[in-house]
């Protein structure tokens, strides 16, 4: 999609989301879902940036999210840093880890990268639960049950009054998506695509695979870790259960529905997926069956997700090539 169109598209999405509380503001249940949509939209967009766009099969997204949320909770509790700042520190910390994880991935390809990054995900649970985690203040298997709520200039955002928190996160999500958009638009975006298509040639043209791959790890893990912090201070409690397969699958579905490498598809994907998931929840075990079936059908029928569909609808007929 052309950049101008992406920008317009993004503006429309955020415009619509901004007024949602007008309709649902009175129902905490729905507001809670909307807040989660905002959070997942950022996580999924970051994933899309690194996987769909930069072509690095990173499966560590959930892990980075959890790392960010734990570190913000611990930093604010242990060091007494106010949550407004601890989320940023958590983001920076996560970015540091992201770079560390990125390093071994530089030499690896496809499914190997997926595995190495997923390994971080797998190891995280025993580490957080075990002696190391307990020493750091993760609360071991119990998790952390009392995390200070977000507080800005003396105003406390609590989860029982979700509208202010919604707008706070709305702001954060908008900023994140603008950053991602800028990255895609800038020469970074071109560098990723070039490296993905022909790494040798790209490097002979002066593109540093090393630099750009690490930068994308750093940026996506920074944003993911930071939003993890916002999540922690919103929900107020954390445990390692988040590392179960469920969240991972949900994020993947968000990407399928939104379209891989089709930013801002991930944002739309997040809202649709979470909404559908909620609507299906009375169906119990049939919910994941339907969801799974939906993924299968969508991948086949809508290869580029909803965004691909829009693109097809709006773009003029492909030009034929002249000789």
């Amino acid at each position, binding site marked *: 999609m052309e950049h101008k169109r992406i920008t317009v598209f993004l503006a429309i999405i955020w415009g619509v989301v901004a007024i949602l509380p007008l309709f649902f503001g009175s129902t905490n249940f729905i507001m809670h879902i909307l807040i989660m949509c905002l959070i997942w939209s950022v996580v999924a967009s970051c994933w899309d940036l690194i996987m769909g766009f930069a072509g690095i099969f990173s499966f560590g997204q959930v892990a980075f999210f959890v790392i960010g949320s734990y570190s913000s909770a611990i930093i604010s509790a242990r060091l007494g840093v106010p949550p407004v700042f601890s989320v940023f520190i958590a983001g920076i910390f996560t970015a540091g880890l992201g770079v560390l994880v990125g390093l071994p991935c530089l030499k690896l390809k496809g499914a190997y990268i997926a595995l190495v990054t997923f390994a971080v995900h797998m190891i995280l649970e025993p580490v957080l639960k075990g002696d190391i985690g307990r020493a750091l203040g993760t609360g071991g298997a119990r998790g952390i049950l009392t995390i200070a709520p977000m507080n800005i200039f003396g105003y406390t955002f609590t989860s029982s009054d979700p509208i202010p928190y919604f707008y706070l996160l709305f702001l954060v999500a908008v900023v994140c998506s603008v950053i991602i958009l800028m990255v895609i638009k800038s020469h970074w975006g*071109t560098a990723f695509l*070039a490296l993905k298509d022909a790494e040798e*040639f790209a490097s*002979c043209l*002066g*593109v540093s695979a090393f630099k750009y791959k690490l930068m994308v790890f750093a940026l996506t893990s920074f944003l993911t870790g930071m939003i993890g912090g916002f999540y922690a201070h919103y929900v107020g409690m954390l445990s390692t259960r988040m590392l179960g397969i469920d969240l991972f699958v949900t994020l993947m579905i968000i990407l399928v529905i939104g379209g891989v490498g089709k930013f801002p598809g991930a944002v739309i994907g997040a809202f649709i997926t979470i909404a559908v998931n909620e609507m299906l929840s009375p169906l119990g075990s049939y919910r994941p069956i339907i969801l799974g079936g939906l993924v299968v059908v969508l991948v086949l029928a809508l290869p580029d997700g909803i965004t691909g569909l829009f693109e097809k609808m709006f773009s003029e007929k492909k030009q034929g090539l002249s000789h």
Partner: protein
Amino acid sequence: MLKLTNVTKKFGELTAVNSLSFTVSKGQVFGIAGPNGAGKSTLYNLISGLYPFEGAISFNGKEIAGLSPHQIAKLGISRTFQIPQIFPSLSVEKSIGVGNHFGSREGFEQDYVDKVLEFVNLHDKRHAMVGQLNLLDKKMIMIGAALATKPEVLMLDEPMAGSNAKEIIQLMELIQRINRDLGVTIIIIEHFMKVLTELTEKLLIIETGTEICCGDPVEVTGDPRVIECYLGDGT
């Protein structure tokens, strides 16, 4: 400006490049030829930093062994590949822009990209996606992207392969213009006699990684050893 001293590359038991030494001077069109498997492309890979090697390569007096490909590109050495490498997800203009943005020491200049597009005759296809183009266009994009790094030396690996007589003449003109108008030193690997004799100023023939002879192209192509191992009598 580009000086190789005793450069050697082994792949296991096979010595692909065997103690080669030569110098390419500024402004030259320098030809490299030799039988299949002689080590020509490998030589390019060594110069552009894709493989480690033994020996020394210096560029404008600076030793480049151990530098990574993107650093070498920034120094002003640019290349194309024998089997076209392209960026299917980018448009023609963007592809060429990659070279300008990342390889040029002066940073991105739209004017320069336009100039290159003009130069390789792709200005009317600038928005086309690269994947849909034909072999010749793909090669032109490679050359264009390499040119966009504002190189001092451009290394071409069999640019003419697969082209017909007329296209070969066009390509030769292009290379001459790059050399003359842009002042870029050219190193070219080719298998076409016509190209070797008419285009190059100095010609190096290698076989199994070893130099056979090096010098004036007409003399070199008349050398019986070269005819024996490489040219055959037909041509």
